[in-house]
């Protein structure tokens, strides 16, 4: 099925080539080309509705069929835009931590470790180390609901890293945190992706984030559209917002 | 002698009834009853598994509305026992008046059960103007229901007779005795069945067989105990043990009811079915639910005949209305309608000789159905065994085969 991967844009890292995304004929992303080196954090900025989230969805493969999208996505020298989500090896962190509520912290992490890594003990050791690194030693058996927001954000990052991604997408992961926590978590995340040498793409509308990332900065769309991303039910959104 | 005794008991019952009627505040005259009945709702609880019968009841409802202003409601039952248990429950709860059932289609063991437990109003048949036309002498089953004297506690409304319906296109010469039926089944396994044993036709199938297989059929008119039953019914079970695996679905499954069995005959799943309606085949052809090739036969040694009755629960709310309906059922108009071969087709309970000539003409004018036997072909009707036989057949069948 896979033709021999064309070897154009750089071997290692994440590269986008001519990415276009349109919704109902309106172009949201018009021919985006960008290369992110390993350990580098690139930032995409833009107002609400400019297509930031659609871009990330396209990259990780979960873009709704209503959108028309094209363009190459290269991860470590492999074009992945036609692969199913689970085989792209692109990790993502959302605004919400999205820890699975029915599993313990430890199980959340174990679930992320690829099946190919065998051995109960080896896997548990990986989890133990990850938690220690996140400053949450011994919290394997905790229910995620009992953690604070900052703790949950760190577990979420660890979960993403444990799945051994080749690139990481950050979808405004700090926007829900209050100011002092925000800076700390941001630092924590950036430190880790840099340490692991992961090419990282951050989407945000907070200039502070972009400054801290220090990588290339891209401005998306003039923001002519009105700011509501989803004109749908306020009730549903309200529920999501609930703690 | 017996007749004299019977009339004596009847007379005694009549006097008792008159006192009872007064005690219960029934009007002394029929006119008075008619007057009170006008506008009353009469809830007639009747088994509803047979469409021509339901249609007939609906017709009766229209007629009593027109003639007497009675609102008849057919409470459709899948088992008559449901209504019996309701009356018992009401009695148990102390509701001795204003009960929910005014009239009930009943006979045999249900009648015996209700009568024994004092659940019936009556005697009342002597109050019905048309009861005098009933052929009690020629058709003794109109006053002796499954060997139990009715004593005026129930009023007949149609005659029934066991017949067998078969498809002449597939079966030119049907077996006309119980042993012949087994021989035929051996050669044609899976081509006959009977409704499940708790359905009255299911037990009737075995009861009819017992008549022919028992040493002394005269014994059947008396109540029977457990031990005697087992001894005397042994030939029946020998016959049935052999027949059962040769029944439709290897005797592991039975149609719910007579009409369900009729559908099997219509679709060619079986070749023979038992029926309590001598007009079953003709009515089925007329309604398009049996193929035009079906015909009727009876057993050479005779088949059981009985009568359908209506009774009034002791706590019925509208006894006057119920009486009016019971009487209407005995009118020549109603009886001729009931006998029409394209309707129910049940023979009348009346003595035609007692009818006025114009009423007799109603009956003479009735066509005879293509698949209905003449009275000569039908032959002698055997009296119903005592209800205890039926009950024991059902219990023994369940003991043997319900596992």
């Amino acid at each position, binding site marked *: 099925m896979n033709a021999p991967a064309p070897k154009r844009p750089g071997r290692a890292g994440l590269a986008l080539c001519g990415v276009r995304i349109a919704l109902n004929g309106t172009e949201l992303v018009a021919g985006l080309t960008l290369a992110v080196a390993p350990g580098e954090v690139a930032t995409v900025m833009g107002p609400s509705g400019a297509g930031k989230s659609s871009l990330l969805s396209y990259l990780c493969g979960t873009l709704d069929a209503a959108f028309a999208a094209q363009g190459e996505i290269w991860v470590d020298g492999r074009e992945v835009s036609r692969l199913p989500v689970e085989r792209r090896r692109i990790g993502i962190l959302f605004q919400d931590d999205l820890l*699975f509520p029915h599993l313990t912290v430890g199980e959340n992490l174990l679930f992320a470790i690829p099946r190919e890594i065998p051995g109960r003990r080896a896997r548990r050791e990986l989890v133990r180390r990850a938690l220690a690194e996140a400053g949450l030693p011994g919290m394997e058996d905790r229910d995620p609901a009992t953690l604070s927001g900052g703790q949950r954000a760190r577990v979420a990052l660890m979960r993403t890293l444990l799945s051994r991604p080749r690139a990481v997408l950050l979808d405004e992961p700090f926007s829900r945190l209050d100011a002092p926590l925000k800076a700390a978590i941001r630092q924590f995340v950036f430190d880790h992706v840099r340490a692991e040498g992961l090419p990282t793409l951050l989407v945000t509308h907070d200039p502070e984030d972009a400054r801290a990332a220090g990588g290339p900065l891209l401005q998306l769309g003039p923001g002519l559209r009105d700011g509501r991303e989803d004109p749908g039910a306020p009730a549903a959104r309200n529920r999501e917002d609930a703690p | 002698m017996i007749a004299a005794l019977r009339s004596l008991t009847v007379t005694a019952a009549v006097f008792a009834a008159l006192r009872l009627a007064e005690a219960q505040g029934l009007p002394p005259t029929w006119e008075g009853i008619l007057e009170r009945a006008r506008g009353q709702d009469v809830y007639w609880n009747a088994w509803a598994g047979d469409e021509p019968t339901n249609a007939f009841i609906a017709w009766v409802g229209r007629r009593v509305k027109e003639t007497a202003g009675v609102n008849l409601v057919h409470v*459709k039952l899948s088992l008559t026992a449901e209504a019996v248990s*309701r009356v018992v429950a009401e009695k148990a709860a102390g509701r001795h008046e204003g009960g929910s059932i005014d009239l009930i289609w009943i006979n045999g063991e249900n009648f015996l059960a209700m009568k024994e437990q004092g659940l019936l109003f009556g005697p009342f048949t002597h109050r019905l103007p048309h009861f005098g036309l009933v052929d009690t002498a020629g058709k003794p089953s109109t006053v002796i229901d499954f060997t139990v004297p009715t004593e005026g506690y129930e009023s007949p409304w149609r005659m029934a007779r066991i017949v067998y319906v078969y498809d002449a296109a597939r079966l030119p010469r049907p077996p006309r005795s119980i042993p012949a039926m087994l021989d035929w089944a051996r050669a044609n396994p899976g081509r006959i069945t009977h409704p499940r044993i708790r359905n009255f036709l299911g037990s009737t199938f075995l009861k009819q067989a017992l008549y022919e297989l028992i040493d002394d059929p005269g014994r059947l008119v008396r109540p029977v105990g457990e031990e005697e039953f087992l001894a005397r019914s042994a030939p029946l079970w020998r016959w049935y043990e052999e027949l059962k695996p040769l029944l439709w679905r290897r005797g592991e499954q039975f149609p719910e009811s007579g009409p369900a069995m009729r559908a099997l005959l219509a679709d060619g799943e079986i070749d023979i079915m038992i029926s309590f309606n001598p007009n079953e085949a003709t009515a089925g052809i007329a309604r398009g639910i049996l193929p035009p090739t079906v015909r009727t036969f009876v057993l050479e040694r005779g088949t059981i005949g009985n009568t359908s009755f209506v009774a009034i629960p002791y706590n019925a709310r509208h006894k006057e209305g119920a009486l009016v309906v019971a009487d209407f059922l005995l009118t020549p108009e109603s009886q001729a309608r009931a006998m029409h071969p394209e309707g129910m087709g049940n023979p009348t309970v009346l003595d035609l000789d007692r009818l006025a000539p114009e009423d007799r003409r109603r009956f003479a004018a009735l066509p005879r159905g293509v698949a209905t036997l003449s009275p000569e072909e039908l032959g002698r009707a055997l009296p119903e065994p005592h209800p205890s036989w039926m009950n024991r057949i059902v219990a023994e069948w369940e003991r043997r085969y319900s596992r």
Partner: protein
Amino acid sequence: MGTAVLPLTGKRGSGSPLLALFPAAALLLFLAPVLAGLASTALAAFGYLPALGGTAPGLDPWRRLFAVPGLGASLGLTLRTGFLAAAVSLAAVLGLCATLHGSRLFRWLSRMLAPLLALPHAAAAIGLAFLIAPSGWVSRLLSPGLTGWQRPPDIAIVHDPFGLCLVLGLTLKEIPYLLFMAVAALEQIRVREQLAVCRTLGHGRAAAWLHVLIPQLYRQIRLPVYAVLAFSLSVVDVAVILAPTEPPPFSVLLFRLFTDRDLGLFFPASAGALLQLALTVAAIGVWRLGECAAGGLGRRLVCRGGARVPEGPAVSGFFGAVAGLPVLLSLGGALALALGSLSRSWFFPQALPSAWTLAHWMRHAPELLRPAGVTFAAALAAAAVGLFLVIGCLQNERVNGRNPAARTLWLLYTPLLVPQIAFLSGLQVLLVRLGLDGTWTALVGSHLLFVFPYLFLSLADPWRAFDLRYRTVALSLCGSRARSFLRVELPLMRRAVLFAFAVGFAVSANQYLPTLFAGAGRLTTLTVEAVTLASGNDPRVTGIYALAQAALPLAVFAAALALGARRRF
């Protein structure tokens, strides 16, 4: 969220004392009859029912119960079919969600739910029997051309000894019901996001559903699943039509005992009703153990990084077909019934009736009016009273800020979990005692027992999801709670309210045993008539009643959907 509203509603606790009465009143209204009925049944089960001559308490009823022929086989059949039906329905629904959620087929199936939910069990069962029997429509369509059958084959399809047809008939209604509950529950779970996370973690879609979404979904639909299990174990009307007859399932056996003319059998029958209750409780317990086992296994797999789950078009196609089957069979059955009701004669193997007539409809139309009127009035009353109570309870939560404990849900489910026969028989004795049997009060009241929980279940989630800021705005604008409720809150909720009303209507129209026991033959509905006439087995008449039975709730559903779709009243 609540705090934002508080300044306008006054101090906590001083909300509305009137509304605060609703939960207690509702619980009393439908728990009291259940408990009273159960108590009455229990007394009779140990021989105490003076009205029937039972004055010496003892174990005799139980001895007589255990002497009933075929009891063991009957219990076995009930357990087998009950578990199988519940498990198959659940598996089909979970499989469908896992493989097709978000697809067009899934949306189509969810849209087909409403009519299927409205279709009464008995009508669905009658249609199914008429469709798949050896002499049924399917067999007629294929014969003799494809099958070579000149006569219907001698195979027990309907009433088969194993009870598979009963299982099929049960899943016909249970799959749509569970799917309906699942669709509602999925709205409470962040499916898209969690699915995306799982997949970026390297798990396939199916594995993500199995390990992450299904466990969360199952928690939400656990009670409905128990209700389905309890229903499968205790259903009477569907079993009469589809289950084996010798011996029948335990529920039918009990029903026969209760309606036997020998009133002495009331005692062993009551004992049986208690046994039925114990059976149901035990079955739910066993099911719970199964849940724990499955949960443990799931966790072990999660720790290993998840199971390898087959996926692909074949798997999703399979589940789509399984879930589509009820739609197909129900529609096919209805069509076959409609053809039957218009036939004059229709013998095997004719694919279509050989002669047509309207005579059956003409003959039965006048007779349909009365039960149809009772059905309509009772369902209208039960749904209206139920809606009033449910909205009262939910508004109480909103205004008085009390959130119900999870335990309340269990109480709500009581009438759905306790086998009907276990308390209806006892309730009937009480009704007769009070002179209430055969009255509208008894009929509507007994229906309300089942209408209320379903109404509550369908309305609670949308009600709680209501954006309270609308209320805040409304209160600040018009300053009256009543006006805010009537002019803003209720109109905003009208779609959910109308839908819940239609659900309540359908539940009432569907009741068989409660109508039989409370109606006392005086008040009878289309469902009772249809089941009774189904025993008569004249497909034309049965067809008419089954179609009429299905028509009423369907019409109400359609009306509710149409009204709800309009932007204004």
